[in-house]
Structures are given as structure tokens and as C-alpha cells.
């Protein structure tokens, strides 16, 4: 069994100088090794170079990437292999589990064909004939816990979790020695993520395959890997045993990364998401972190329930939504009662397909509820007339998951924010209102951002622009659908902190839809858990998350990957 060794690897992307970007160093002098049978995780935010590094193991980088240093599989340097040798190395010795939930499978071929293709390319004794390959396919499907009938399915007929299982089966097909898993659970919800991690872990331990796993989420890596390397801006920040990296990080950046995904039950992260401000103060020593924490916006945990007033702003009574298409009826939302008071942040938690987004759309008046259900805004039923709805939609603003898709790439920040004002025929000084909104969304000085187009902003800044656009309408409530799911760890903390600040300073209510229980722990006053269209549990965040009553809530909590050592420290402290 070969080791995978990165020896002083630097990777530079050559881009046309005319475009003004020149050479981009994606990876700088990284040395890492994955011993045979070992498991290594690489953590980092997007742009940290972790994927680039992993793809270099199979020379899968685009032509403009220049690699310095050596990537070795066993005693062979990958860069020196001929194309024939490289093709033989690919998949039969080193296989990759791509992010299968996205577009890593060919949409016009059945998944079975795609697995068999790998077997045909690397014929080994186990599968010399077509029948033997079929048998091998059945064996692989069995290993990842999928019925063999699914092999005849096309990728679009499978759920995200099933596609990810297919990716794993495909990686295992030719009995590789090393598996590289690139964000194998991103875009999956907690419960499916738990199942996939279980499959990966099980296969690695049982077959002694070496695993190199890449993720932005330290807790996922802690679940599956013995050692973790943290990367940032192409450089290696820290390498060590999983538990040490997660619980006693040597570098401040690692701690920040670990804290971005809070431990539920940890009072330090309750109503206090980690922000980047920590980063600017920290000089590198552990002591400085305490000081930085103190400078971060402080929200007393006790303020949680007290922040909300008694006035009910938005209320759903016995709300059901049924979709009918081609003879099938789907009851997406069933008899939901939900209320959001002024100044309250409600987290609506559930896995994908639980009906949370449909519920949000109905609350916004975008979807008509079934007969007998009602949406009330400030005690009055929501009318269906255009005029009433327009007024209502000014008061309740929607924030979507992906700010890059929600913003028109051709409009400047100013235009994006002002657009809503023009639709609502805002009578006052448009420019002033836009400036105030941007300031409220912490984009200061606002004039600096007026002419910027989304392309020039970071993910976190784009989400701030979306929020500013909502704030410009002086709403009383925000409905946010997975507001931070597509953002990096540090941006995530900032946006959550912003939402808390808006609640405290402007008295804004919010309904946050999420699959992430950590997020609820970070900012929500109240949590409602949704399952199969019904709200199965509702109450104050501490009550629901620390003392769950419903079976499903318990499952969600159990499935969330966590760093056990950290909880141990916590318990000791209490």
C-alpha cells in the first residue's frame, strides 16, 4: 500500500496578464503526508487551496496550473508519469469521491453504466467478463447500502444522498488504495450527512483504505479523520491530531474555524456567533483570543426571550398547503400553527423536503394556503388583493440563500438596493435611504460601495447587499431562507451577528429557515422543528435543543457531527 506525500508543493495558476490578474498562487509550500491506511482531513474556507491541492494528486488540474515540488504516490512522482501510467494510476490506485450532490455524474447515462465504465477501464482479476462486472456492480451497490435497481437510474432520479452513495461506490469500484473525498457531504442535510459519513468511515476502517478528506467543516473532518490539516490562503496553518486541532488549536485561525460551527449547548456561542473582528485583533497567541472575544459584540444570553415583545407580528393558523399535479397530491404543509413576535428571531428547522420553504412562501403570500388556513399579519388576515399584498411585502422582506444568484450581476449595489424603493414608489430621498440601509447592513462607508457590482464583492458582502435591499423598505420582519448556507465560515458568523444586531437595534423580527441546528443555537430565540410538513416541536431555543421531546428532534441533534472532546472540556468547566 502506497503513501500519498505532498513534498513542498506550490501550485500557481497562470492567467492572461491582460486580464490584470497575472499569476495566482493557489497553494504555497505545503508538505503533508498520508500514510498507508491513515486518514487525513484538510480544512479551510473557499479559496484556501485545499481542493487544488487534492486534485494535484491525480494531475487533474487545468492546463494553466503550474506545480512546483513533488506529489508522490508510493515512490512514484505523479508529475513524472507518462499519460498511460497516469491513467492506470487514476482510479485503480487513487480514486476521488466528488461532491456527488452537484454535477459530478453524467446526466445522460445511468449511474450503473458510469460505475461499470470504471471497471472496464481498469480490468482486474475480479471482473474480467461482463457478468463478473455486473456482479461487482451489485456488490458495490450493496456496500453503499443501495438497492441494485438504483443502478438503472439516471442521476436526476436520485436524491442528493443517493448520488453521494453512488459516487462512493464508483470510487471503491477498482479497489483503490487511496480515496480522496472532496466535500463529500456539503449540500446534504444533517441526517443524510450523518449516514454518508458513516458509510465512508466504515469502509475506510474495514478495508484499510487511506482517506484524504476535504471539507470546510471541522466537525465533519473530526468525525472521519485521525489527523487534520488546516489551510488558509494556500498555506498550511496547522497540522495535528484531530482532537488536538479541534479542542486545543495552536493557531487562532483554527479556533475561529472550529467556533464557526458552534457546539449546541455551549453557552459561549449562544446568541454570539463568531465574527471576523476576532481575527483582526488576534495576534496568534491563545491569550489574545479571550481579549478578542470580549471585543466582539456581546449579547447577554439572558436577553434571548426578553428581546421579544408580546406583540404578535406574523401568525399562521392551521395552515396547510397541498400541491396537485398529474393525479398526485403532495401535502407539503399540514396544519401548521406558528407565530413570530416583534423583536423575535424564530428558527424553522428541518431537513430538505420537510416543507419549510413552502411554509415560508405561504407566509409571504406567494403560495395560497388550503381552505381553512390563515396567515395573519399584525392580527389581520392577509388579503389577496394586489394593494394589500404590496403593502404587506414591504413590511416583510425575503432573503434568499445564495446572494450571488439573488443579485443581478449587471446592477451596481446602489441600483440593487434602490430597485425595491422604486417599485414601492418611495417618496423621500432615495440616495439617503440607500446609504442608511447599507450602513445598517454594515457596509461602511456606503458611498464606497455604491458603484460596485456583485462580482467585485465577497460572498459575505453580497449577502449584506441583499440584506440592505431588504432594510431599505424599512420592514418589520425578515424571512431568511438558509441565509448563510452558501457562505464561508467567517462570513457566516458576520451575517448572523448582523441579524442579531438588527433585532436589538431596529427591533426587527426574523424567521430563519435552516437545516443547521448550530445556527439556531447561535441566534434564535425560538425554534420550531418541522418534519413531513408538520411542526413537531416548538419552544424556546434552550428548551428544544437541550431537552428535546420529539423523536425527530433527537435524531436531528444526534446526527449533527460534533467534536466530542470539546463537549468534555465544556462539561468539566461547568
Amino acid at each position: 500500500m502506497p503513501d500519498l506525500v505532498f513534498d513542498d508543493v506550490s501550485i500557481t495558476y497562470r492567467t492572461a496578464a491582460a486580464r490584470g490578474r497575472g499569476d495566482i498562487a493557489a497553494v504555497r509550500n505545503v508538505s503533508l503526508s498520508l500514510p498507508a491506511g491513515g486518514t487525513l482531513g484538510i480544512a479551510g474556507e473557499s479559496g484556501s487551496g485545499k481542493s487544488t491541492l487534492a486534485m494535484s494528486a491525480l494531475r487533474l488540474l487545468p492546463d494553466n496550473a503550474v506545480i512546483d515540488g513533488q506529489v508522490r504516490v508510493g515512490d512514484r512522482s505523479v508529475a513524472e508519469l507518462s499519460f498511460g501510467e497516469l491513467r492506470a494510476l487514476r482510479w485503480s490506485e487513487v480514486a476521488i469521491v466528488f461532491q456527488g450532490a452537484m454535477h459530478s455524474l453524467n446526466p445522460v447515462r445511468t449511474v450503473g453504466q458510469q460505475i461499470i465504465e470504471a471497471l472496464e477501464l481498469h480490468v482486474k482479476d475480479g471482473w474480467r467478463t461482463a457478468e463478473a462486472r455486473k456482479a461487482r456492480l451489485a456488490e458495490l451497490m450493496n456496500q453503499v447500502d443501495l438497492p441494485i435497481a438504483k443502478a438503472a437510474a439516471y442521476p436526476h432520479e436520485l436524491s442528493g444522498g443517493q448520488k453521494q452513495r453512488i459516487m462512493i461506490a464508483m470510487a471503491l469500484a477498482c479497489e483503490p488504495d487511496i480515496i480522496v473525498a472532496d466535500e463529500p457531504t456539503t449540500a446534504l442535510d444533517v441526517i443524510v450527512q450523518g449516514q454518508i459519513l458513516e458509510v465512508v468511515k466504515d469502509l475506510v476502517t474495514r478495508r484499510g483504505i487511506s482517506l484524504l478528506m476535504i471539507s470546510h467543516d471541522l466537525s465533519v473532518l473530526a468525525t472521519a479523520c485521525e489527523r487534520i490539516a488546516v489551510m488558509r490562503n494556500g498555506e498550511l496553518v496547522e497540522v495535528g491530531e484531530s482532537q488536538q486541532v479541534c479542542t486545543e488549536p495552536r493557531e487562532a485561525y483554527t479556533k475561529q474555524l472550529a467556533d464557526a460551527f458552534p457546539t449546541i449547548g455551549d453557552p459561549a456561542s449562544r446568541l454570539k456567533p463568531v465574527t471576523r473582528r476576532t481575527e483582526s485583533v488576534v495576534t496568534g497567541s491563545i491569550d489574545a483570543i479571550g481579549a478578542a472575544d470580549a471585543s466582539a459584540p456581546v449579547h447577554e444570553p439572558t436577553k434571548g426571550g426578553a428581546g421579544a415583545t408580546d406583540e404578535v407580528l406574523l401568525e399562521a393558523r392551521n395552515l396547510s398547503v397541498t400541491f396537485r399535479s398529474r393525479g398526485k397530491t403532495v401535502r407539503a404543509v399540514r396544519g401548521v400553527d406558528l407565530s413570530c413576535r416583534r423583536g423575535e428571531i424564530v428558527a424553522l428547522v428541518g431537513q430538505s423536503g420537510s416543507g419549510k420553504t413552502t411554509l415560508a412562501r405561504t407566509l409571504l403570500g406567494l403560495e395560497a394556503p388550503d381552505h381553512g388556513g390563515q396567515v395573519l399579519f399584525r392580527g389581520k388576515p392577509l388579503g389577496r388583493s394586489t394593494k394589500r399584498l404590496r403593502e404587506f411585502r414591504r413590511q416583510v422582506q425575503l432573503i434568499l440563500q445564495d446572494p450571488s444568484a439573488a443579485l443581478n450581476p449587471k446592477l451596481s449595489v446602489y441600483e440593487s438596493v434602490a430597485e425595491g424603493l422604486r417599485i414601492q414608489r418611495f417618496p423621500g430621498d432615495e440616495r439617503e435611504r440607500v446609504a442608511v440601509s447599507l450602513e445598517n447592513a454594515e457596509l461602511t462607508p456606503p458611498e464606497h460601495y455604491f458603484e460596485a457590482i456583485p462580482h467585485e464583492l465577497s460572498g459575505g458582502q453580497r449577502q449584506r447587499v441583499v440584506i440592505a435591499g431588504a432594510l431599505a423598505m424599512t420592514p418589520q420582519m425578515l424571512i431568511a431562507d438558509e441565509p448563510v448556507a452558501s457562505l464561508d465560515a467567517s462570513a457566516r458568523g458576520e451575517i448572523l451577528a448582523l441579524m442579531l444586531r438588527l433585532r436589538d437595534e431596529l427591533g426587527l423580527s426574523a424567521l430563519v429557515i435552516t437545516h443547521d441546528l448550530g445556527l439556531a443555537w447561535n441566534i434564535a430565540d425560538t425554534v420550531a422543528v418541522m418534519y413531513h410538513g408538520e411542526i413537531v416541536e416548538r419552544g424556546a431555543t434552550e428548551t428544544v435543543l437541550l431537552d428535546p421531546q420529539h423523536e425527530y428532534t433527537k435524531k436531528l441533534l444526534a446526527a449533527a457531527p460534533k467534536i466530542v472532546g470539546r463537549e468534555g472540556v465544556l462539561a468539566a468547566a461547568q
Partner: protein
Amino acid sequence: MTDTITPVNAEVHDEKLAEESPTRSSFLSYFGTKLGGALISLVMVVLLGFFAFRVLPGDPVRRIAQERPMSPEQIAELRRQYGLDKPVTQQFLDYLVNIFTGNLGESYVYRTPVSELIGQYLGPTLLLTGTSAIIAIALGLWLGQRAAWRNGSLFDKIATGTSLTLWSVPTFWLALILLMIFGGTLRWFPTGGMVSPGVEPGTFAYVVDVARHMVLPVVTMVAVVFAQYLMVMRASLLEEKSSDYLTTARAKGLRDDLVRRRHAVPNALLPTVTLVFMHIGGLVAGAVTVETVFSWPGLGKLTYEAISGPDMPLLQGTFVVFSTIIIVMNLIADLIYRQLDPRVRRA
């Protein structure tokens, strides 16, 4: 290792329960919908066919009367014969009845039933445009995928540049140039018509003769249209080139040309197919210029003659035939697309 891990063992297997096997029996309803749409288009074409040509300037009877001296009585008699003395609504009703009984009327100029004329001229047109279409599509798609795969290479630049230049050349001009060089100066190919006089139909010599007659018109048509196929294929493949599943295919150890042939091209073909078939319909209609220049005895030439008439029944007839071909082609495109793309197959 174990102490850093919480066993994650959720028994909720929702994703498995929510599945059922896809039904393939929806083909009939899909086919029905598409066929219904095609029929509606056809009806619209038939309606349009009547009114569009009533708006054309020029009075066919006066045109005929110009050629030989006719008395007012004779002109009135001619009008009565053609049914042009009746009110427009009555003419329209007659037209509808005739269309649905397969009677397209009688040509003013040829004095024979339009359906007979069309039957006579349809074969040569299908032969000419069919051959051109097959060559143009094969050439365009092949060059397009090559050019896209090696985007920015010399091959890409030459293929794209040449095809675009030819595309922008006016058809009649190119046809005339070819006719002058290869038909006139070099005398390699005949300058017009489909068969030389005196050649026995059904013999091998006949086939060779027709083929020789076809060369110049086919070259003209291919040269002018293959750029469309090339550009569509090229753009479509360029889009697929950055797809993640191609990285997967490469990581599996597939040779570069297999990655292209097995994974990239089938996906790139999806948007291409629809456009290709829509263009074929246009190609048939576009045969008018080429057939006229090369005196090819096809529908295009017939249409050209009918316009100069104006021979209204004949015009209406060719108009309906051309439109039907385009509608049928679009229907075929829909059906093929369904076969190629499993995602549509299920919808």
C-alpha cells in the same frame, strides 16, 4: 481516534422511502401533446396560407390578359373559372373544403392540379436538400466539437473563420461563382438541370449523371449553412467542457478522446439537436435560391415561378408543403430530444 468521534447512527431513512420507480408509459401522452401542438400549427399555417397571398400585390387575371389580347368577357370568364368573382369569404370556404379533401386547386400557369405538380417536384427537392443537410450536419457537428475541444487552437480558428465567412456570403453569389468556375471555365460539372437529355432512367449512367448535376448545388448549400451547426455545437460543447462530470471521467482514467466522445459530446448534443432539426426545415425552404440558380426542377424553383405569376393556388400549395415540412421536423426534434435526454423522458 475513537474518542473524537460521536457515533452517528440515525435510523431515519427518509430518502429511501420517498422513491418509486419511474414510469416509462408517459410516452404516449408526451407524443400526444407534441402531435397536438404540431396539428394546431398546421391549421394556423393553412389559414395563413390563404390570407397571406390575398395581400400580395398583382392581379393574376390581368397578368394573363397582358400576354394575349382578351376581351372583357373573356377576362370575366377567366375570373369565374378561378372563382375570383366570388366574395372573399366564399373563396375562403372553398379553399378550406378543398384543402381538407386534398385538393390544392389548379395552377393558373401550368393548368394542371397543384397537388400533381408538387408531387412531381417534391422528389428532386428532397434529394437535393436531404443530401445537403446530411453533409452539412455531419461536417458542422464534427468540426464544431473538434474546434470546441481544442478551443483557441489553430484548428479552431481556421474552422470557425472559414465557416463564418462562407455563412456571410450571399447564396446566389456563391452559386454563380461556382457555376462560372466549375461549370463554365473548367467544365467539370453541368451548369443546370437534374439530368442530361437522352439518359435512360434506372440505369447506372443515370445515377452518375444525377450525381454530377447535384455537386454544385449541394456544395453551395452546404457551404452556406454548415456554419450554423458548427457554431451551435461549438458553443454547446464549450459550455459542457467545464462540467464536473468530465473531471470525474478524467479521474477514472479515461483517455481524452473518450472523455469527449462518451461524456462531453452526448451532453452537448442535447441543445444542438433541436436547433439542427429546426434548421433543416429552414434549409428546405431556403432551396428556392439554389434551385433557381441551378435550374433544379424542385419545389424551390416552382415557388419562384409561382411568385412571378402570381400563381396563387400553386403558391398556397408550396407554402403549405414547406410549412408542413418545418412542422414535421420540429416534431421529430422533440421526439429525438426525448430519446436523448433521460430528464425529459420522465417529464
